[in-house]
């Protein structure tokens, strides 16, 4: 377990192979990327190579969801798989090599109604000619009684972080997708028993995960089942589980509840500024344009379907190339003003 990761910006790389871009003199960045996951960092690599003055507001966790994924097996170029945390570090190192600046600040508000665009973080305010929104998604919670009460005291959405606390204990994992099964397998390294609770009669996860989970003697399944309540005293003691076919309710004793039932896009701060679909995802055209010219979107925040590192990276690259094109067409602080609105801004 003793490894030493350097996930922070380390140092200026060798001058021969780096492109150092200073903080803009007028305080206005050419491009600000909101989000430091695979999509934001890929956009930063492309923008840096195009010599665009780029700032990445990476939020609290550079690498995004990638960082709390144990192992990534399907990112091309890593035939023996790669730790999510390590992949995140490699993305960041590559972006920094091309001069992107990173700030571990969380965006709290934006103003896309006039140029340059304004971005406010928990610490300060920034101005930018173009913006790429790559804020990603956060774990969805079940919304049942007890879940919030016991969050951090038995309820978790990060097996990588918290598995250790369940050595020799019993846990349940809620969900039936890749994350649920993969993290369920991670939990068996510590926990004695892992029960996977899934609402349908078959799992949604990729076959390879299903086979591994089914072959693991510590894992058992409760299908057609949902959690109605998280029970506990000071910490979690159990979950009330309902069979959706029979309606029968049982209490399952458990010390921990790991929730992997999908994601919610982080778009609260864009309401009234960008067009969102009914699920909260940002709408865009095939070139990653949002309804505000100069504001682009990439990654999971606009992707309800695939949610893969490689796809997020791909749309990040497109967004950066489109931003470069936009900056070429509107080198001054202008832009197509007449289009600076979104359909149904009240929505």
């Amino acid at each position, binding site marked *: 377990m*003793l490894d030493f990761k350097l996930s922070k910006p380390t140092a200026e790389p060798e001058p021969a192979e780096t492109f150092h871009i200073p903080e803009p003199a007028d305080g206005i960045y050419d491009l600000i990327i909101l989000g430091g996951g695979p999509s934001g960092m890929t956009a930063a690599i492309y923008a840096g190579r195009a010599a665009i003055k780029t700032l990445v507001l990476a939020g609290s966790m550079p690498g995004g969801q990638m960082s709390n994924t144990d192992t990534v097996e399907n990112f091309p170029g890593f035939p023996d798989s790669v730790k999510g*945390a390590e992949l995140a570090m490699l993305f960041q190192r590559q972006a920094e090599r091309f001069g992107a600046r990173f700030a571990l600040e969380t965006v709290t508000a934006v103003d896309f109604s006039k140029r340059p665009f304004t971005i406010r973080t*928990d610490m300060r305010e920034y101005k930018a000619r173009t913006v790429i929104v790559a804020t990603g998604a956060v774990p969805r919670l079940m919304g049942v009684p007890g879940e919030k009460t016991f969050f951090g005291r038995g309820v978790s959405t990060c097996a990588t*972080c918290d598995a250790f606390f369940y050595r020799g204990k019993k846990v349940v994992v809620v969900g039936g997708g890749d994350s649920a099964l993969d993290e369920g397998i991670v939990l068996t390294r510590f926990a004695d028993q892992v029960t996977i609770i899934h609402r349908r009669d078959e799992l949604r996860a990729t076959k390879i995960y299903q086979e591994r989970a089914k072959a693991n003697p510590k894992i058992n399944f409760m299908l057609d089942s949902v959690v109605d309540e998280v029970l506990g005293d000071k910490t979690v003691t159990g979950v009330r589980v309902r069979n959706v076919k029979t309606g029968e309710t049982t209490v399952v004793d458990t010390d921990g509840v790991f929730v992997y039932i999908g994601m919610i896009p982080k778009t609260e701060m864009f309401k009234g500024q960008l067009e969102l679909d009914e699920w909260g995802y940002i709408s865009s055209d095939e070139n990653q344009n949002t309804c505000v010219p100069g504001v682009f979107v990439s990654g999971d925040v606009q992707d309800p379907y695939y949610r893969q590192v490689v796809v997020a990276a791909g749309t990040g690259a497109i967004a950066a190339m489109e931003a470069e094109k936009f900056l070429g067409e509107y080198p001054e602080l202008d832009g197509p003003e007449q289009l600076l609105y979104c359909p149904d801004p009240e929505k």
Partner: protein
Amino acid sequence: MPILDDDVRAEVEKFLEQVEKPVKLVVFTQEFECDYCLETRSLVEEVAELSEHLTAEVYDFVADEAKAEELGIDKIPAIAIIGEQDYGVRFYGIPSGYEFSSFLHTIHLVSEGKSELSDAALAALAELTEPVHMQVFVTPTCPYCPQAVVLAHQMAIASPMVRGDMVEAMEFPQLSVKYQVMGVPRTVINETVHIEGAAPESMVLAKVQEALTGAAG
């Protein structure tokens, strides 16, 4: 055998070029070295070698009791990071995994004697009249944790009233039980108030106020 391999050593050395003022890394271990005490001491000694401005000091928790008391060290392995003054910045347990970056980041901040907090936060911290003890529980595999650790350390640097500890939960299971740590990061403020997860600066400050007013009332 060295703790850091050559690649990491080279990267750390580059990073430490930013450190331009003296910083002491004071490590506490004991003769019969505890779990990870040996590794923590080796890590500190190896890192200190990589910058002319860093020095490692090694103390025995038992034999050098007076020194431990002076620095408020109550468990080992422990590292106190001391710059121009002792800001109250501590690491309990080995800073490995993600916490290695917290360790380096904190060394840099201590060398400057300056936090990167917002003006509003600095103003709020300047008002503090009572001691604030922040213990941030972490695991080395937690990507959210460094933010919470570095924030606590920055608050310690910014205010003489604040002490900031990283506590590696796996090495101090009795404290994990005491403070009911079942998820990380978990920040315990003055024993009474706690924060789950990596909270933004403003929320942490509000929790500090809560801890202080709770104590007063």
